[in-house]
């Protein structure tokens, strides 16, 4: 650390070049920050402790096939189950049938199973008291500029109302906010309505539910309980399939696209370019300073200190650029999410991304600094001073 001013002076020797190199490093790590956030949110989907404690039971035939209501009590009797809730797709859309919104008709105790969903106490009371009440995600409220208390007209792309039309009118009774913003981006974008009201109003759903959500007392028993639940309806005409919520969302994500591969190859291309760029700059900087390094050695710096000085310089350069880049990504992410109207959601950058990023900065810094540093270490004082 006592040579910090020396390293700094070396960095500032050619301000333009250092600045330009910094800017490309910033660009690369900005990209890294954005992409890694996306990759992580794919990996983490449903992977929370709560996700592992919840089981999802749907029809084995297909996820759009409903299950009979009678299963509710029978699932509740399976040993190890602490709570059962259920929900249906509602298929809501706002203004245009193509403007679809994640909307579910849910049982009264649905929220109890989701500690990740925070609803103001008074608002939840209001929701429970209003037959036509809905809870709306924070993100949606902002996106469409809705207010609590207003009427909300929705179309359902699946279920007609009792009068045969697709138009439903709800009352917004409360706002859903995710307790954990990082993994809860999803809860921000949904609407919950009363299953009872839904079931009473649409002639197409007579006491059927889309899927059951079960909370287990002990995570380690989840597999056994899942098998026990499926055994209830084995060989019936409504066979079910139960898996942990984490497993369900992981397999769903996997089907979306092989995001990991695509993101990985982009990052690979970016870093390859980056290593080349900085490596070249470092090599140039050392080449230019040959005589100065020779002077350093003459006045008593050991070969190893020179090596470390050059390495420290390249790591420092990488760290400055990298930290600024990831920080900008942290600021830019939410802006992109808002600008795209929720179509693209870039999650905030978490601890994992930061540590991975810092690790990469140091590793790349050492890598690109290595060649010039070794060159500097092996410098022959007499030759270097003579300009050979």
């Amino acid at each position, binding site marked *: 650390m006592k040579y910090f001013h020396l390293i700094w002076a070396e960095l500032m020797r050619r301000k*333009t*070049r250092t600045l*330009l*190199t910094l*800017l*490309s*490093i*910033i*660009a*690369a790590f*900005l*990209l890294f920050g*954005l*992409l890694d956030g996306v990759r992580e949110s794919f990996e983490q989907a449903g992977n929370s402790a709560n996700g592992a404690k919840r089981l999802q039971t749907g029809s*084995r*035939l*297909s*996820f*759009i*096939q409903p299950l009979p209501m009678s299963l509710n009590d029978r699932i509740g009797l399976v040993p190890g189950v602490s709570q059962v809730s259920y929900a249906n797709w509602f*298929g809501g*859309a706002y203004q245009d*049938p*193509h403007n*679809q919104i994640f909307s579910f008709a849910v049982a009264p105790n649905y929220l109890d199973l989701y500690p990740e969903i925070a609803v103001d106490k008074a608002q939840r009371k209001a929701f429970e008291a209003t037959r036509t009440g809905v809870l709306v995600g924070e993100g949606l409220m902002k996106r469409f500029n809705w207010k609590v208390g207003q009427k909300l007209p929705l*179309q*359902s*792309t*699946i279920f007609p109302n009792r009068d*045969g039309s*697709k138009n439903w009118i709800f009352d917004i009774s409360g706002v859903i906010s995710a307790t954990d913003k990082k993994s809860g981006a999803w809860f921000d974008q949904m609407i919950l309505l009363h299953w009872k009201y839904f079931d009473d109003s649409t002639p197409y759903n007579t006491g059927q539910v889309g899927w059951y959500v079960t909370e287990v007392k002990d995570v380690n028993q989840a597999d056994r309980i899942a098998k026990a639940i499926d055994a209830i309806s084995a060989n019936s*005409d409504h*066979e079910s*399939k139960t*898996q942990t919520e984490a497993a369900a969302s992981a*397999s*769903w994500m*996997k*089907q*979306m*696209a*092989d995001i990991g591969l*695509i993101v990985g*190859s*982009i990052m690979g*291309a*970016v870093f*390859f*370019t*980056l290593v*080349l*760029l900085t490596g*070249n*700059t470092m*090599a*140039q900087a050392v080449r230019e300073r040959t005589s100065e390094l020779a002077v350093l050695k003459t006045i008593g710096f050991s070969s190893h200190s020179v090596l470390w000085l050059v390495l420290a310089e390249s790591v420092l350069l990488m760290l400055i650029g990298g930290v600024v880049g990831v920080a900008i990504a942290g600021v830019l992410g939410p802006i*992109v999410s808002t600008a*795209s109207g929720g*179509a*693209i959601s870039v999650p905030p950058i978490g601890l994992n991304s930061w540590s991975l990023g810092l690790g990469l900065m140091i590793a790349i810094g050492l890598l690109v600094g290595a060649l010039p540093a070794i060159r500097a270490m092996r410098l022959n004082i007499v030759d270097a001073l003579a300009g050979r």
Partner: protein
Amino acid sequence: MKRLKSFARGLAVLVGLAAGLIAWSMLPWPALLGLAALFALWMFTTRGGRQAASVAGVGISTLSQRLGSSSVVVIGIAGVVAVLVAMLSMAEGYQQTLRRTGSDDSVIVLRGASAAEVMSTLSLDSINVIAQAPGIARSADGRPLASAETVVAANLPIKGGAPDEDGSVQLRGVGDRAFDVRPQLKIVEGRKFESGKREVVVGSGAVRQFTGMQVGKQIRLGSELWTVVGVFRSGDAMDSELWADAEMVASTYRRGASRNSVIAKLSDAKQFKSFKAALAGDPRLQVDTTTTAEYFAKQSETMTKVIRVIGIVVGSIMAIGAVFGALNTMFATVATRAREIATLRAIGFRGVPVVVAVMLETMLLALLGGLIGGALAWLIFNGYTASTIAGGVGQLTFDFRVTGELLWSGLKWALAIGFIGGLFPALRAANLPVTSALRAL
């Protein structure tokens, strides 16, 4: 005063550059050819041009001495172009697959306000009414070319997944008419299913996605076992589906006599308006009518947009990084050649030829980078198969498509990066005071 002047000049260059880039992004290729021809003409006929050519010649012939730093420009730009073209080709492939599925002279009729086929239901009565609507083409035996189809999402084990891991596939229950409505669909292996039997034919995309899709094998759909009897190919979104007899699908999934949609061939694309009006005016019906072209275009709209936006954002950030890399390299090049350039200027070469020469060198490197990047994207990604959930129900398999148009836009990006990366170092070279440059080093 002097600083103010140089600041104003810098500002003017920036504004000009921005305007130039906007114009550049819209430039069609014939215009570029014209520009190149004009430039060549200038180069060979005027004195300044000839000077520029000879300076550039020197620079280019000594490129091999600066191999390390020049390759930074080339590889940096190649990376940008490869990533950009790959992302855009993904969007293109996705969109084309869905676009090709539809046509202007066929229509899809769904229950009103249904966003996708799987969400719609049509009763038997409605189906009969729709089939009798005016404008529908008729087969040789005089029956209307309208196919009522059932669409369900079925769970099947995916290839390479865990033993209990299921993917979602679109299972379509059809009658004979379905094949008449889609003439592009051909059975390439095995045979068609027989009606009244639990037999399925599978699309070539589904074969790649799910296990057990070989002719003769049995698969579990719903609570029953079905036999795979054939493989079909149609080159569009249908390739990702499984087809079986409508009656059997409806009974397995308890759909009764209702169907999800009616697909009909019109006798002429111009009949669409009257066909739609006839259905809308019928009090017995509450349906949405769209041409299949429009329906599938709408289905692909959001996803295509998202992929494109991501591609362009990622490409832009990388491009910015590459511009700084190019700037760095070219500034260094100018610095190492400062004495040479100053000498040229001292013996009477003017500023413009020097600027042009440095620019030319960078653009050449950029062109090379663009070509390499485009070639890489083409080699790796053209025809690369990806899949995603589409229409909310089933996996859709599609190929990346690296089209000439995408390669061209990648090349334009490359040249633009080269232009910016070369411009400022070139201006610096031209403005270097001759005396101090000669004294330098």
